[in-house]
């Protein structure tokens, strides 16, 4: 991801612009030069979010803020906490309700107005959906928010979720799931609403696969790196994270936080957490949607996989690995950090991916004891519904629907290995989770790590305990759900950069398609003879 810094001649008069290292990282605040979202390249190509509306589902937006007012989309905004069309944050003397305003500034703060900083998509429109600020959340408020004006709002950004205490397992309820399904199928005139989710702030004690919003196939779950490429200490890792952007970190430097708008016309340098990462991603997706308004919710996930960069991200715990089709991923960062320049260039010429199919790859329903030492190892061999109308040949998302009970749920470790040899951590140890009753009941653990792979063959599930005290447990169900396309998604794409992941993937698809064609013709010749 290196580029010459002085090649970038972006000049903004906004006072905080030079402190927005995640936009253009010149090494400020002890950061690493070049480690940023590469928005400069996208801006220079003319993409700034024109015509795209992003909704911030949170505690409201200070839409009177001079850096937000001009980009505020009042028509698309609503306040579900107070049931009126004015999602202005409720006053508190501890600044508690600044969250949504800070997120909004990251996406759509106006440029060159000499106020605060600049949004990633500084010509986009931002809508406020105030829905966090009531005594309790309800399914109907979440569903109403996620399904608010889906023909006007393109992207919904959420920087909240179930409690990140390392022992909660929770996710969208019935109405909200229905609303999300409706959004990805009918939103944006059928191209699908884009849901961007902050993966979680539970740190190494938590696992974002226990958060049903982050681990949904319909949301793009975003993790955060800090300005020198290391993980932030609050980062949760899980196999459903697709990519990363940036947020504050362990740095003592006060300017290593995220600079953005703040309540009542203020600015801040201290926006933080994975909360700050999601709106940055929403902004990058807005640039891509401006480059190609025809992108579907799945196109955007494919573009994320193909254009995210490892850059200089560094995870001390999980190694960077390549999956069965050569795509490099990391358990914490997903496919890498978003690269706005690459994404808009690829988006411009992108051909929508083929239809998506769903196949139950197999299921084991007999109860199996989990040993206190060692692992229970199960295998499922599948043809991925080959020969049937819902054959899945090129994977997108894979779900392992698991029902398991244990004397200490937090000590469970689940790993799944694909036929092409990619090992995904579905659940890592959560030392604070002492549940011994509820367990996981048909919980859909999702992995993005086998993206593009051929699912035919034997899948291996390993389940064991990772604690210090012997525990007992029973696995009652493992159902393998395969989601993907029948035809090669990249074979018709235009390749401009022969070093790119797209070039590599397209070449691989051509080779595999050729092999399979030869195999089929040999078979038919043999059968004739």
């Amino acid at each position, binding site marked *: 991801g290196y580029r010459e810094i002085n090649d970038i001649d972006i000049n903004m008069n906004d006072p905080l612009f030079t402190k927005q290292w995640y936009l253009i990282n010149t090494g400020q605040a002890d950061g690493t030069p070049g480690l940023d979202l590469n928005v400069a390249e996208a801006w220079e190509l003319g993409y700034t979010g024109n015509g795209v509306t992003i909704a911030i589902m949170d505690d409201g937006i200070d839409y009177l803020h001079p850096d937000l007012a001009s980009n505020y989309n009042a028509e698309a905004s609503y306040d579900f906490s107070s049931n009126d069309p004015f999602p202005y944050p409720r006053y508190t003397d501890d600044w508690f309700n600044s969250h949504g305003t800070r997120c909004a500034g990251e996406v759509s703060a106006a440029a060159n107005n000499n106020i605060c900083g600049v949004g990633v998509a500084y010509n986009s429109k931002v809508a406020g959906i105030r829905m966090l600020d009531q005594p309790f959340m309800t399914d109907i408020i979440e569903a109403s928010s996620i399904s608010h004006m889906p023909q006007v709002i393109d992207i919904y950004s959420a920087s909240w979720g*179930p409690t990140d205490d390392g022992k909660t397992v929770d996710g969208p309820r019935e109405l909200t799931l229905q*609303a999300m399904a409706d959004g990805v199928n009918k939103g944006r005139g059928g191209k699908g609403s884009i849901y961007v989710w902050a993966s979680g702030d539970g740190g190494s004690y938590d696992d974002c696969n226990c958060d049903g919003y982050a681990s949904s196939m319909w949301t793009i779950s975003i993790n955060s790196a800090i300005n020198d490429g290391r993980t932030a200490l609050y980062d949760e890792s899980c196999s459903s994270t697709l990519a990363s952007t940036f947020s504050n970190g362990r740095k003592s430097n006060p300017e290593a936080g995220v600079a953005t708008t703040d309540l009542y016309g203020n600015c801040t340098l201290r926006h933080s957490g994975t909360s700050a990462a999601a709106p940055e991603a929403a902004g990058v997706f807005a640039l891509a949607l401006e480059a190609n308004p025809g992108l579907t919710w799945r196109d955007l996930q494919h573009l994320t996989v193909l254009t995210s960069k490892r850059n200089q991200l560094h995870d001390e715990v999980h190694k960077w690995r390549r999956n069965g089709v050569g795509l490099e991923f990391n358990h914490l960062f997903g496919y890498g950090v978003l690269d706005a320049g690459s994404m808009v260039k690829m988006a411009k010429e992108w051909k929508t991916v083929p239809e998506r199919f769903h196949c139950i790859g197999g299921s084991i329903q007999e109860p199996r004891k989990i040993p206190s030492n060692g692992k229970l190892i199960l295998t499922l061999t599948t043809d991925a519904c080959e020969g049937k109308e819902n054959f899945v040949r090129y994977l997108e998302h894979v779900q392992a629907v698991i029902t398991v009970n244990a004397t200490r749920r937090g000590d469970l470790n689940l790993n799944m290995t694909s036929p092409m040899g990619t090992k995904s951590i579905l659940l890592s140890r959560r030392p604070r989770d002492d549940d011994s009753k509820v367990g996981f009941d048909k919980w859909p653990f999702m992995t993005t790590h086998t993206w593009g792979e051929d699912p035919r063959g034997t899948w291996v599930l390993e389940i064991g305990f990772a604690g210090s005290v012997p525990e007992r447990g029973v696995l009652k169900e493992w159902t393998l759900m395969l989601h993907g396309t029948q035809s090669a998604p990249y074979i018709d794409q235009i390749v401009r950069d022969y070093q790119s992941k797209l070039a590599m993937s397209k070449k691989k698809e051509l080779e595999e398609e050729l092999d399979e064609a030869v195999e089929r013709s040999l078979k038919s010749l043999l059968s004739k003879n």
Partner: protein
Amino acid sequence: QRPVLTDHFLVELHEGGEEMANQLAEEYGFSGSRKLPFADNLHHFFGSGPPKSRRRRSVKNREHLEIHPKVKNVIQQEGFDRKKR
């Protein structure tokens, strides 16, 4: 522990759109209603009295509303936690 019940209700009507829903909401003391865009006859009735959570169902609104001929189902919404990240 027992679920926390809120003053938000999911109301399913046999027929009649938003107008009917608004009329019923007013009749039964709710401060408003809103149709759920992703479903046919589902409506959000809110504000049945001072916004507070309670452990007991709001018997008055719920039972009376439930027996109205136009109403198919009434579900008082459970409250749960969501945290800013």
